[in-house]
């Protein structure tokens, strides 16, 4: 069963896994209000159980700022989402720039819960640069997972980012195990010099 987005975000919060500020917006006004609250550009995403791949279905609009643009984007997105009704519109603060990483999990028939980290974004498919471990992982495992990546120097440009990611992997491993999560996609996770933000969450229990 797919966990509803805000509940999934709350679950991440509980484990101290930082995700981008998000809220459901029911109309243009609340979207504008959200934008001024978080300050700066926002993203709007239509969430529907009928659309598993939001961006492929055209249900993601990025980098929107200013009341007029928000109004236009909200209208356009509602129109597109009509085909996937019932749907809700999620507003998110735009993540700063950084390296896109994917963190995931799945249930293996033989060995149980698996945890994955890989270079994300447009590189996932071409480079297939990822590392997998069985949950629960130790700190040593988390460090090794990151070091195993060919792109480790890109993913963790400094010690701080590496530490943050290491702790995060351990938290995710715990979360997967304690909540019997059968599938997890944190994709993308934006890694910055001083930390990271989970931008999209998909959890299946």
């Amino acid at each position, binding site marked *: 069963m797919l966990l509803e987005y805000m509940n999934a975000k709350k679950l991440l919060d509980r484990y101290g896994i930082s995700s981008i500020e998000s809220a459901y917006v029911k109309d243009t006004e609340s979207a504008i209000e959200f934008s001024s609250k978080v300050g700066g550009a926002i993203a709007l995403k239509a969430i529907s159980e009928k659309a598993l791949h939001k961006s492929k279905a055209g249900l993601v609009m990025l980098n929107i700022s200013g009341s007029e643009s928000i109004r236009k984007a909200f209208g356009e997105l509602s129109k597109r989402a009509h085909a996937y009704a019932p749907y809700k519109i999620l507003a998110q603060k735009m993540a700063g720039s950084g390296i896109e990483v994917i963190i995931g999990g799945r249930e*293996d*028939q*033989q*060995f*149980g819960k*698996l945890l994955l980290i890989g270079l994300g974004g447009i590189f996932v498919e071409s480079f297939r640069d990822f*590392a*997998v*471990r*069985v949950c629960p*992982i*130790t*700190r*040593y*495992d988390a460090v*090794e997972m990151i070091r*195993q990546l060919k792109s480790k120097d890109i993913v963790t440009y400094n010690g701080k980012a590496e530490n943050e990611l290491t702790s995060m992997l351990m938290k995710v491993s715990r979360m997967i195990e304690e909540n019997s999560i059968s599938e997890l996609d944190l994709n993308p996770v934006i890694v910055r010099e001083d930390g990271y933000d989970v931008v999209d969450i998909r959890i299946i229990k």
Partner: protein
Amino acid sequence: MRMDLKPMMNPKSVAIIGASRDPDKVGHIILQNYIDAGYSGALYPINRNAGSETIVGLKVYKSVLEVKKSIDLAVISIPAPAVPDALEECGKAGVKTAVVVSGGFAEIGEVALQDKIVEIAKKYNIAMLGPNCLGIMDPSSRVDTLFLPTYKLSRPKSGNVSFVSQSGAVGSTVLDLIAKEGFGLAKFISYGNAAYVDEVDILEYLLHDKETRVIVMYIEGVKRGKEFIEIAKKITKVKPVIIIKGGMTDAGAAAAHSHTASLAGNSQAYEAVFRQFGFIIAKDLSELLYFAKAFSTEPLPLGKRVAIITNGGGTGVLTADSVYLEGLELADFSENTKVALRKVLPSLVNIRNPLDLAGDADEVRYDNALSLVTNDPNVDMLIVIALFQTPGADSTVASKLIYYKKKISKPMVVITAGSDYTQTHKTMMESSGLPVYDSPMAATSSLTKLLKYKEYIDRDL
């Protein structure tokens, strides 16, 4: 421990069910092999159709029930449909363990027949290996259930490497290759369909087996994933386990499905388990042997600095390249070593690493170099290249290398390549416990595995 495999591996009495007078029959070959190997326990040939005759001088029984003596192991090689009855009789006769060599079970879709024999094994508490397997071999207890005659498949000498293979084909090939290696065999276990005794039971047994120092494994899939992880955590800390898995690619996985009726699990999950729990992954069968050779004799290195001593410049350079490609480093000789080397080596030798002793290097020059370099605190491991095509290299050089190997406590391997003359010296060194490789990559990748394993067992959680 779920099952005790000791009576199987070290039996005092063996019944061979399906023993035949016909020398082409599997049952005959197995019996003959026991006799050839010099097995000293009691042997009971069993053949349902037997009259009062003997097979190779031994009295034949119609059933294990007629033996009326304690039987540790029954080797069963009769057609699959007859196996349940034979196993049932083993149960009634109190046979402790069984190796079912016969094929014709789950691997060809006869799942119900396989379930039936597992049920019987459970009912009578018989540790049953197979079906569809080569069985076991132990050169020290002279147990040999292999149905392949010794003229076709050479048997390895006794040693400290145990080899576990799900596949009989890979098993017999690698076994034949091990027979040519300097290191010997502790136990060979081919477990086929793993219907009852599986890889977890086997690892549990090998963990406690005193003769086993190194384990080499070929698997296509495991039956009990969680238990496999638990035993792996225990065993890899104590004994290195070199592993190769068939079906690591998607194409390979399809083949594994139709082979030993095993579902090749998802390859990434397997790789994750191998990495996480300290297995040494081999990519092909030659790596399996390279790594086994190093782990069988070598101590674990304390660091990654390698000294190369050579009598061939080019091979030294290639080896230096391999050292870096594998993530190792060339050692920087200490000042003391450099000064001392300068005094004892001819002026044509450049004092640096790789240390090229030149093509006319003889026993004395190797001796001078090795006495200093082996003691250099900046050196963690040694690769000695001895090309026997050169004018200076002969048996005295090989003897000198063996001498230092026995003396030092750092890993030391030799690279040499060539035809008959070289092979003679290779055999000489390997049988003295000095690993010899025929290429720089084989040598450096093996040393790297020693180092990685050392890092694994030393790691700080």
